[in-house]
């Protein structure tokens, strides 16, 4: 059974906040239509999954993977190449925005 799940403007804007994506008005109105249709469609999983009491969700098969606890790369092996890719650096450090305000 296809249930209509309309997602309104406020819900889309909230998802944008959670996803850390600034959305334009145009994007919000397009997404209202598109996401409502997609969410209504994927809601059919509720019927497909059924009311199986034993059916607790489990993601994939589980097994432990361990590796020897040793250093796997040389000091500075990737440092310069990675510094090159950083948007802002100071010396050998990544520069970021201040997050605490001073009075």
């Amino acid at each position: 059974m296809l249930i209509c799940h309309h997602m309104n403007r406020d819900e889309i804007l909230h998802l944008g906040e959670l996803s850390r994506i600034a959305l334009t008005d145009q994007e919000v109105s397009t997404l209202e239509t598109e996401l409502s249709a997609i969410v209504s469609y994927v809601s059919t999983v509720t019927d497909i999954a059924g009311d199986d009491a034993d059916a607790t969700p489990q993601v994939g098969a589980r097994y432990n993977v361990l590796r020897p606890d040793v250093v796997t790369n040389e000091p500075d092996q990737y440092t310069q190449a990675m510094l090159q890719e950083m948007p802002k650096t100071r010396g050998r450090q990544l520069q970021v925005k201040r997050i605490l305000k001073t009075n």
Partner: protein
Amino acid sequence: MNTITALITAYKTGETTPTAVVSAYLDVIAAVDSGINAFLAVYKDEALAAAATATKRYATAAPDEVLPPLLGIPLAIKNNILIEGQLATAASKMLENYTATYDATIIQRLRDAGAIFIGAANLDEFAMGGSTENSAFRATHNPHDLDRVPGGSSGGSAAAVAADMVPAAIGTDTGGSVRQPASFCGLVGFKPTYGAVSRYGLMAMGSSLDQAGPLTNTTADAKLLHDIMSGLDPMDATTIAPDTYPTVETKDTYTFGVPRSFLTEDVDADVLAAFDAHVESLKAAGHTVVDIDLPMFEAGLAAYYIVMPAEVSSNLARYDGIRYGFSASGDDLLDVYKNTRAQGFGAEVKRRILLGTHVLSAGYYDAYYGKAEIVRRKMRAELDQTFKTVDIILTPTAPTPAFKLGEQSDPLAMYRQDIFTVPVNLTGVPAISFPLGTVDRDGKALPIGVQYIAPHAGDERLFDAGVKIYDSSLSPK
């Protein structure tokens, strides 16, 4: 049509050299790719240098010397796979200027085997799409009809092989992204058992679904590439050991199962006719074909469009403008994040991140992600039962031949293209697409494909069936 195996033989006999072959492919790329856009970058100088080294190696090899199995073979590599020192863009503005700082494991293995990387293949941004129209840079065209899409997301890889710009290419498959473009472009496309091939150095999309696989002209070539790329990797904890799953034997003749109720009115009539003709040819060749029921398998698409976006929203959280890639300015840290992601991602990527965020958010998690994982488990159980009586499941690869650029504007309609391919990724089994002739559209012959699905670790069975059924049908070159 060139094959890897034919090229290797010609190199060994001295009939041709890697330098001659790589130069010839570079000439084809220069002549035709401006109308196809299969490549985002061509590594001309590096490829010619590697070809010269390979040529010298063949010329100086001792008669009994064992040479690397891909020595001098040019390949196109989907641009979401890292090659050290080359741009790895994922066809996204977010990584337009990002240079890979290391080789992916599969790149290292192909390099060690003597392969030459001739260029970076176009894709849908971050491998999200089924047409390669979502590339942030340019759309790829289908060499069989330039008005049509090559499929996706590995559309550049498929178009490069189909236009004879390269003998084989590597793609990635999260919900059909190797098999569907193989079908649209008339190639063999292989999605291995989940865990068979390392993802170290592949840009993660749906981590419980992603696998890398070859696009080739023959099954034998697909097997050759897969055998080199696959195997345990200490850098990817999801890679499986040879004994993780029970052995899946190869046989002289196979029992094929057809999920008949799955072949509905959504499947193009010509595709269905070709599929039925293939069923008859299998019977004529001594194989057995039976009808099967796969109700959960048929319901897989809804579960896929929960699980995949959920994993996308988590995996793409790393692109925030701080450590690498595109970075937009902003008043505070939050603005930097929001502006970077607003300007760096395209529409389809944003859509999937928002959808994934929704299905994982408090109050919705149980209703969506939880239920999707239950469906997924039921699908696995259903497959286990089915494979007790059949060896291989048979479906069309895609419900239609290639569509026109710009024709599919509704995202949900585009997602329905994946109906036969996504259950394979959700359950982790291997599958392969073979060309199934062509259908006529607007006076153009468009390729279509058939998909064979085997149990977990049944990769070898698919290659065996492909060599016996598909490769043997090809005229010798």
